């Protein structure tokens, strides 16, 4: 297994799978569209490019298989996972809890996750940046962000 798994085989396989799923979806949705004679079908370009995506993915996959034996570089996947989970949680909670609550926590956790250990400075910067952005966007530019329930800010 380790001989065939490298970034190119993963990329090729992912591209091929995505193109297959989207092609199936396009043919299903395309069958329900009524076309006037002489009209260009709405799925023409997507399908053209999905076939191109499939062909390129196959080329990359074959290249990866032929190359083989290339190890995936060692990365700090745990830190990436924490960073991703932080953003997913922040996005999910932004509407119910409000930007002013969620964003400072997300910034604080991100900075901590990136290895910055001065908690006081981290907390001050997290709150400061978010407050500044809030003032700029909401008060100055009149662009509302999700509000904190009960507080209206």
């Amino acid at each position, binding site marked *: 297994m380790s001989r065939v798994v490298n970034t190119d085989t993963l990329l090729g396989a992912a591209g091929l799978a995505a193109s297959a799923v*989207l092609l199936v979806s396009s043919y299903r949705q395309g069958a*329900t569209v009524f076309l006037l004679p002489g009209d260009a079908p709405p799925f023409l370009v997507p399908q053209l490019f999905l076939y191109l995506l499939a062909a390129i993915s196959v080329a*990359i996959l074959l290249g990866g298989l032929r190359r083989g034996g290339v190890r995936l570089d060692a990365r*700090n996947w745990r830190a990436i996972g924490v960073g991703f989970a932080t953003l997913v949680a922040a*996005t999910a909670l*932004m509407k119910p809890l409000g930007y002013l609550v969620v964003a400072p926590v997300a910034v604080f956790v991100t*900075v901590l996750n990136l290895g910055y250990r001065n908690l006081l*400075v981290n907390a001050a910067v997290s709150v400061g940046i978010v407050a500044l*952005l809030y003032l700029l966007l909401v008060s100055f530019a009149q662009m509302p962000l999700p509000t904190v329930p009960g507080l209206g800010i």
Partner: protein
Amino acid sequence: MGIDAFIAALGLLADPWAILIMLLATVVGMIVGALPGLGTVTALAMILPFTFVLTGPQAIGLLLAIYVSSVYGGSIPAILINVPGTPQSAATTFDGYPMAKAGKAAEALGWVTVASTIGGIFSMIVLVFAAPQLAALAVQFGSIETFALIVFSLTTIAWVSAGNPIKGLLAGVIGVILSTVGVDELSGADRFTFGNFALSAGFHVVPILIGLFALSEVFVTAGQGISTTAKPIISTGFKIARFRDWWAMKRTILRSSVLGTFLGVLPGVGATAASLIGYAQAKSASPNSENFGKGEPEGIVASESANNAVTGGALVPTLALGIPGDAATAVMLGALVIHGITPGFQLFNRNPDLVSFIFVALLVANIMMLIVGAMMAQVFSRVLKLPHALVMGGVVALSLAGSYVIRFSVLDVWVAVMAGISGLLLRYANVPLAPIVIGFILGTPLETNLRQGLIVTQMQPLKFLESPIAVGFFTLTLIVVLWPLLKRYLPKRRTID
């Protein structure tokens, strides 16, 4: 540009808010450009949501100032810590850092700032003359010719901008496919929405940009870990060389400015290649070539005037044809469209005052870059001392807010987060991200023109070949695609001979 249009453009710039916004944007652009890991596209992507509350000219002024100053900003860490803030300034490290180590950081910053300004203004002058001519040529373009031009540009950008052409093409194709999500404007059919009503409006370019360039950088930083040993920053100042010394560089400046402008016009080549080629050309032509790499000011001047000359050059096809030359101008193009400005012949024909404003704003942006660079070099050296983790925290806060305010939809924040993690994985797989953005922005005009062309030719695509302009672009596309194969073949033949 006529004198009336020039005066009208100055009138638009007389708005004190426009000048203040450009000044602030120049400072922000320089800071973002100076911070390693971020860059021109990230700066433009993060600032784009703020332009929604500005008038068209104010927004254009802001984006041009960010564009020009962020390219320059990358040279500051290149000189002071031997790490280019943006890839465009890689060649500046060759002589900039040795100069700084020799106690000439102030001189090096002086050379860089003035050379960047000259390169930028030179390319602006070329833009003033070339863009209207190119736009006038584009009058002959119908849907078939425009389709062929987009195919050529997209293929070239994807093929040339990447180390691996196949992966560049993959990125361009992904961009086009993403642009087709949502309700089809011509038939009203839902495409790839999977029953999700929020997806009917399709993806917006800003969350994709924020995710691909800003959030993916946060993930990359997490994956690499941040070095706790900070690079020593050489104390600095700002000193402009004597006129006599500048005069001695005139050939180098002119050569690099011409080269940078020309390479900027070509799709996909970009400022990084321009600065490296400018540097190499200067080295081969200079009588001091043995000093290159040891702190020769001519090397800095060559690379910096070339990379800043790309800014005006890349705007030529962007404004005249609506075809961006690189990722940064693709963002600019997206921003113009968001503000209801459609580049191309009609822009020059119907709105000459706005076109003149763009030219004048580019000139002002370059002059501001010179002034701010000269006054704040000391401040920028302090910015480099900011812990990178805190900078990334700021990127997260800005990304969450910036992607939300585009359409006041959490879906756009999800898109940004997903684009961020996809951007990270694509970067690990050595897939360039810029062609995704360019494919996304060119996807809609590509599809519209192809379908209109097919309707005109009664669904017979071979009739596209009856247009000589289209045949020309298709031939050029083929040459670009086959060039790597031909290049591999040609040296072999020579060896056999």
